[in-house]
């Protein structure tokens, strides 16, 4: 099978901090690929570079035959992304957020209408389509973002901790849909998660990153065999150690706290 993502010697430094340290990996077309690692290991930074949001310090990336740093617009056509942090417009309704996305991605209006209805029914938000997103709970926002990321039927979908804060029902429902989409349309799925059993169950191949380096890769079975453990969770702990990692608070977190202090007045 051909590779849809190829990463060679990728390096990203912020000042003298190395977030991603010369990593190389590839993802095959039509594969479900999990990218695992403790907090602050370099997962999100890697995804940002793959999705044109950050320029690598050095190294090369090829996504569907194009280079995100050199030809970002072409690359952006090929993927969809569900970010770790919310990225919806709170002041618009759920349906308006979907429509906005559809227009930006050039989905023709008839198809757009049909898919919006289908996807919003699937995430069970169709009844709330005309509510402002700011009235939604965290879980509802998450579901809406997943629906939105699928709207333009991308070749690769990136999901950065998509199931964080979702109940088991919704999680299960979401993966069923994604696996279905993967089978039927051959969509490549690239995701990160902290739920190891989820990665073991869903992903065909897994890469584990820690301190900016890929320390293991293979199927869940390969990884448990390699580490002589009983489950992916144990394998993960054995590979990455068991001390707790702290991520530095980002500017976003700081601002959110401030916004809270100001009585939730955000705009």
């Amino acid at each position, binding site marked *: 099978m051909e590779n849809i993502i190829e990463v060679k010697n990728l390096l990203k430094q912020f000042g003298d901090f190395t977030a991603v340290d010369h990593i190389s990996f590839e993802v095959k077309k039509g594969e479900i690929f999990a990218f695992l690692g403790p907090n602050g290991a370099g997962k999100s930074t890697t995804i*940002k570079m793959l999705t044109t949001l950050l320029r690598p310090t050095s190294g090369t990336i090829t996504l569907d035959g194009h280079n995100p740093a050199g030809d970002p617009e*072409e690359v952006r056509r090929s993927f969809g992304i569900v970010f770790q942090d*919310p*990225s919806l*417009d709170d*002041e*618009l309704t759920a349906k308006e957020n979907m429509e906005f996305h559809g*227009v*930006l991605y050039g989905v023709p209006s008839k198809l757009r209408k049909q898919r919006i209805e289908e996807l919003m029914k699937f995430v069970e938000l169709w009844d709330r389509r005309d509510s402002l997103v700011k009235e939604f709970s965290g879980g509802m926002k998450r579901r809406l973002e997943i629906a939105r990321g699928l709207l333009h039927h991308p070749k690769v979908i990136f999901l950065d901790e998509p199931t964080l804060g979702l109940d088991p029902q919704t999680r299960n429902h979401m993966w069923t849909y994604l696996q279905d989409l993967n089978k039927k349309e051959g969509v490549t799925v690239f995701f990160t998660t902290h739920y190891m059993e989820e990665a073991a169950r869903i992903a065909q191949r897994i890469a584990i990153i820690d301190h900016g380096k890929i320390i293991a890769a293979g199927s869940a079975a390969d990884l448990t065999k390699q580490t002589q453990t009983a489950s992916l969770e144990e394998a993960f702990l054995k590979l990455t150690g068991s001390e707790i990692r702290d991520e530095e608070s980002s*500017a976003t977190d700081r601002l959110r706290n401030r916004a809270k202090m100001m009585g939730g007045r955000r705009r």
Partner: protein
Amino acid sequence: MKTIYIMWLRELKRYFRSKSRMIGSLGQPLLFLLALGYGLGSVFQAAGQGNYFQFLVPGIVGMSIIFTAIFSGIQIIWDRQFGFLKETLVAPVSRLNIMIGRTLGGATVATLQGMIVFILAMLFGFRPDNWWLVPVAVVFMLLVALLFTALGTGIASVLEDMQGFQLIMNFLVMPLFFLSGALFPLSGLPSILAGLTIIDPLSYGIDSFRALLVNTTHFGLGVDFTVLVIVTAVFLVVGSYLFSKIEV
């Protein structure tokens, strides 16, 4: 084209939905208009400068435009902090179109805000010198609004978070407003102040409003127009460049 339209539409939807913002941002211009307009009217008249209220209205229209426009531009910081910016930045459309759509949207909103102040002023007795020139004045309002939205966008593109916001208010927006001749005539100023008013683009905006609405001008409408067009073009180019360089 569709990108520009949808970005523009988003700005307008947000504006019409937040009634509190709409009304809240009218409070300050109205306060200036009424307190200063009536408070200083007699002094102004005694100095032989004519009707202060008539003189002040174009200035206050300019004030509400610059405030709203820079705020609209700066909204990018909020969009960055609350994630929505990423959604637009990973879309397969040119950032230039995103920037143009946003800027047009913000400028439209600022122009509407200026027109509301204009209408309110009429309720308090303001009368334009020539009704036929009011639509031309609206075109100039849009030009001024574009200029300052582009400026706000450019600034917001390089700011990490809201920390710098107060700085911008105190060291950019306020000086631009107070040194623009919105509140006082530009003739006969001390030379330092006169020099500052000449480099303030808002001076030309407000002067053009005065030329069109109350038929008095300091620089002349032709100069106003030329300066506004050139500065707007420069800010748009610089703003687009900075916006295209955003990383999140």
